């Protein structure tokens, strides 16, 4: 089926000429992506990619972009990290409604990745939680896609783990 997702990149100094990058992306098979070049030093691709699974769609897109612009650094795969507004929009409810759900279920509403003036969650966690409550009709493949995007973002962050972090991992596991 078709999966719609976005990959955002930071361009490397010295290889940040957007018009030439767009041409390389076209040659590398990214002609199923909308390419956004509105911010200097940034590149965003909104793919609508046909694949057997969300993971296959996202992985092949990452590989295509890497072939075209090896110097670009991935910032984020979306849909994954979301605020309440984004999550509500994706689920198709109002922000107030989503907020009410969160406040009404402090014991089991998914824990955020960051809590602050603007909290953020992994979308996959919220969708899984809603699924257990039933009666939410999500777009086909959305849970699978949120899961695949989360895997990409987690893998990207994991590369930053330094060696002593192993101790932290044990402590977290309790």
């Amino acid at each position, binding site marked *: 089926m078709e999966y719609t997702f976005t990959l955002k990149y930071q361009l490397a100094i010295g290889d940040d000429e957007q018009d030439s990058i*767009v041409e390389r*992306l*076209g040659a590398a098979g990214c002609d*199923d992506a*909308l390419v*956004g*070049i509105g*911010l200097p030093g940034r590149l965003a691709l909104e793919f*609508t990619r046909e694949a057997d699974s969300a993971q296959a769609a996202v992985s092949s897109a990452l590989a295509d972009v890497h072939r075209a612009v090896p110097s670009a650094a991935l910032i984020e795969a979306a849909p994954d990290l979301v605020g309440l507004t984004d999550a509500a929009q994706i689920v198709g409810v109002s922000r107030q409604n989503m907020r009410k759900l969160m406040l009404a279920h402090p014991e089991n509403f998914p824990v955020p990745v960051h809590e602050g003036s603007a909290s953020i969650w992994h979308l996959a966690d919220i969708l899984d939680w809603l699924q257990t409550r039933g009666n939410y009709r999500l777009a086909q493949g959305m849970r699978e896609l949120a899961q695949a995007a989360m895997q990409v973002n987690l893998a990207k962050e994991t590369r930053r783990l330094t060696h002593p972090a192993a101790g932290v991992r044990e402590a977290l596991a309790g």
Partner: protein
Amino acid sequence: MPRLSHSKKDVESALSYAEKQGWRVDVGGGHAWGKIYCPYNDHECRCGEFCITSVWSTPKSPSNYAYALRRVVDNCTTHRKQRDPGAKE
């Protein structure tokens, strides 16, 4: 002088839709047919990267692609605020 039309009719209709919402359409490129520019592109924008969106000459699926172009125009945060002034961030 009228601009060059895009050879895929779905894409061309999405481009004229964007133009009606105030977007500028520029033609030029190889794999890229041209670009569309958001009329606002200000610092408050939340969709920044897509304020300038490249348009392929031969997108893999013209109908999907046209749909995605329309979505960019409709998702513009400044535009959305003007359409629906009560909407909160």
